[in-house]
Every structure is written in structure tokens, then in C-alpha cells.
């Protein structure tokens, strides 16, 4: 058996730091090895001396000086900042930079959002511009334009009535604009064109 393999375990065994299985192995080995038994005895003596360091006398004056220094430090400390202010201004350097960067990002984001949502000055001007006032007595060109507009309105009205008729034929189902084919619209337009002009 290689004794040096047991040195580390023996160093733990002297203070009862081994689990049951390893403890049994070490004890079995120690029972038959004078070298390791001697090592265990020396380790025990070494450990006893080390433990004696715990009993070292510490001067009471030293401890009093330490306590007084701490209390002096605490009594002269600045009042504790509020938590969030402490994070921003009084924390570790990394936290401080992170907090400032976050604040900057929030401020920039808010500004960009506000600019995209709020109306631009141009829109404001357009909104405030008064609507065009038509003359009470329209000139010939204006009257001609208005009659054209009326013609378009009439055609739209006819297409709409055609769609309603189709809806009736389909048993009340709604007819979407896409359901009215181009040819139907063209036929309707032709019918309208053929009708005598009743407006005049």
C-alpha cells in the first residue's frame, strides 16, 4: 500500500473530517502501518498547537479602540440617502453609470415618442386654416363644375340601388362591392347613359 496516498486522508481523519467509509479505510491502514501512525500523532500535536491560537490573549484596549473607531465613523456619517438616489448617486461606480445610462435612454426614448405622436407645427397650421368660402352667386365655370359633380353623385346613387336590388335577389345576403362584377357595373352605366337626362 502506498502510504502517501493516505497522508491527505490522515490529515482529515485526525479532526474527524472524513466520511464513514474513508474513516474505516484509514483506521484499517493505521492499524498496520507504523509510519502513518506516527504521522497521525504528529498531526494531532500540530493541530493542538494550532487550536491554542484561538486562546491567544487579545488586549481589551485593542478591541475598545476598534469599537470606538467604528462608532466615531458611524456618528459622523452622512445621513443615509433615499434608496433610489443612493443607487444613482451614491452606489458603486458601475451601478452609477448603469443608472445614468438608463435615465438617459428613458429620456431619449420619451422625447422620440413625443415627437412622433404630437402634431407637427405644419399640421397645426393646416388645421387652423379657415375653409374656402364659395361665392354666393357662382360663376359659369363653377356652375358647370358643380353640375359635373352632381352627375357623378347621381351615378353613384344608381350603382348603389343596383347593389341593393342584387342583395334582394340573393335572399337578403349582403352584397359586397367585390360581388358586383365589372360587367354589371358597365351594364348599369350603359343603362344610365341611355336614360333621358331629366336634370335639365
Amino acid at each position, binding site marked *: 500500500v502506498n502510504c502517501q496516498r493516505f497522508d*491527505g486522508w490522515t490529515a*482529515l481523519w485526525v479532526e474527524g473530517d472524513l466520511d464513514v467509509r474513508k474513516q474505516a479505510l484509514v483506521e484499517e491502514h493505521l492499524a498496520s502501518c507504523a509510519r502513518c501512525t506516527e504521522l497521525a500523532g504528529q498531526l494531532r500535536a500540530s493541530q493542538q*498547537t494550532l487550536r491554542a*491560537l*484561538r486562546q491567544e490573549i*487579545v488586549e481589551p484596549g485593542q478591541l475598545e479602540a*476598534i*469599537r470606538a473607531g*467604528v462608532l466615531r*465613523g458611524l456618528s459622523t456619517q452622512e445621513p443615509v440617502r433615499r434608496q433610489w438616489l443612493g443607487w444613482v448617486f451614491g452606489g458603486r461606480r458601475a451601478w452609477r453609470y448603469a443608472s445614468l445610462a438608463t435615465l438617459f435612454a428613458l429620456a431619449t426614448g420619451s422625447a422620440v415618442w413625443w415627437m412622433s405622436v404630437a402634431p407637427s407645427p405644419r399640421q397645426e397650421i393646416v388645421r387652423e386654416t379657415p375653409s374656402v368660402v364659395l361665392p354666393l352667386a357662382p360663376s359659369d365655370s363653377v356652375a358647370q363644375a358643380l353640375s359635373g359633380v352632381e352627375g357623378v353623385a347621381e351615378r353613384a346613387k344608381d350603382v348603389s340601388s343596383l347593389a341593393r336590388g342584387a342583395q334582394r335577389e340573393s335572399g337578403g345576403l349582403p352584397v359586397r362591392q367585390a360581388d358586383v362584377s365589372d360587367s354589371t357595373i358597365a351594364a348599369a352605366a350603359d343603362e344610365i347613359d341611355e336614360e333621358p337626362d331629366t336634370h335639365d
Partner: protein
Amino acid sequence: VTTETGAAGAAELGLILMSRAAGDANTADADLVRLIKLSRAGDLTAFEQIMRLHDRRVFRTALRLLRRIEDAEDASQEVFLRVHKHLDRFNEAGQFSAWVYRITVNVCRDINRKRSKGLALSLDAFFADGGSSEPASQQPDPLDQASQTEDVRLAAVALRRLPEKERAAVVLRDIEGLSTSEVAGILGSSETTVRSQVSRARLKLKKWRDELNRSRT
């Protein structure tokens, strides 16, 4: 020292001190929790009481980890200042002394890091000076000189030669008498790692102690 203790707080503190004086071990933890609450409320007398309960352990650990008495004093003060600052974070259900040990180890680690930079500078100065001055870390520890027996002094000298992690493990396990799991929790490592560090450290200490004994004779 000014305190913000109110009359109720002072009365409560008086009861705590009386129960401690009576040696009632069962109420010790509850007393500590009350002292912590009072300290959180700004009661410096209560905090002084907490320091009295832990200062010897903190100073002893710092001295063994830092090797110089002035550093150990500075470290102890820093430890208690940090304890006071972070009292709000402390989980009352946990072990307060383990938490204090953890802060102590961290503070000593910080000081050792700063000192290793300083030591590099002082070594430069040492060689520039023609080797006439002794580096600060090599000066004898006054506490070692005042140790009760020569054996204890030799153990303290041998302890200084250990690497930082092994020294921390053996100081907490063998000198402070904490369990392996507590040491692992304080050092932030596994129990297996702590056992390995402690085992190596014990063998080294035994070897160095033998060498020192031989050179003495």
C-alpha cells in the same frame, strides 16, 4: 457617542443585557435579532453590543489572515462599518456570525490585494535602496511575540507561510472551530474544496513546524 435610542429602546436593551448576564443561552438568538432591529433603527448602543459579541472573533480572524496587527485593526473597523451599512440585507433566519465571518474574509481579501500592490512597490524601493530596509510584511507580529508558548508562536509563524485560500480555510476550520459546511458557505466554495485545502494546509503546517523545531534545537 450620540445615540438615537428612545426610552422604549433603552428599556428593551436593558432587558437584553440582563438576559445575557443571566446566561440564558436559549434567548441568545432572539436577543441578537432584537439588537439587530434596534441597530437598524439607528441605535448605536445596540450596535456596540453587537460589536462586543463579535469583535474578538473578527479581530482574531483578521490577524491570522492579514498577519499584521495594524492591518487587523483596520480590517476589524471596516468589517463592522460594512456590517452596519448592510444590516438591512441580513436575513434574520440565517446565521449572523457566519455572515460576519464572510464579511471579515472579504475585507481581508481586499486588504491583501491592496497590500500585495503596496508590497511590490516596497520591494522596488527595497532593491533601489540597496536592500537596507525591511519590507513591511516581514516585520514580526507583536502578538506572536506575546504568545504564551514557543509552540504557539511557531504555529503562528508557520500559518503565515500558507497560501491565502488554504490559510483562510484552516483559520476558519481549525482555529475558529467552524464546521466544514460553514467554512464552505463563508468562502463560497464546495465542501470538497475546503477539505482538500484544509488537508494540504495541515500537512504543510506539520512539516514547517517540524522544520522550525529542528532549527530551534
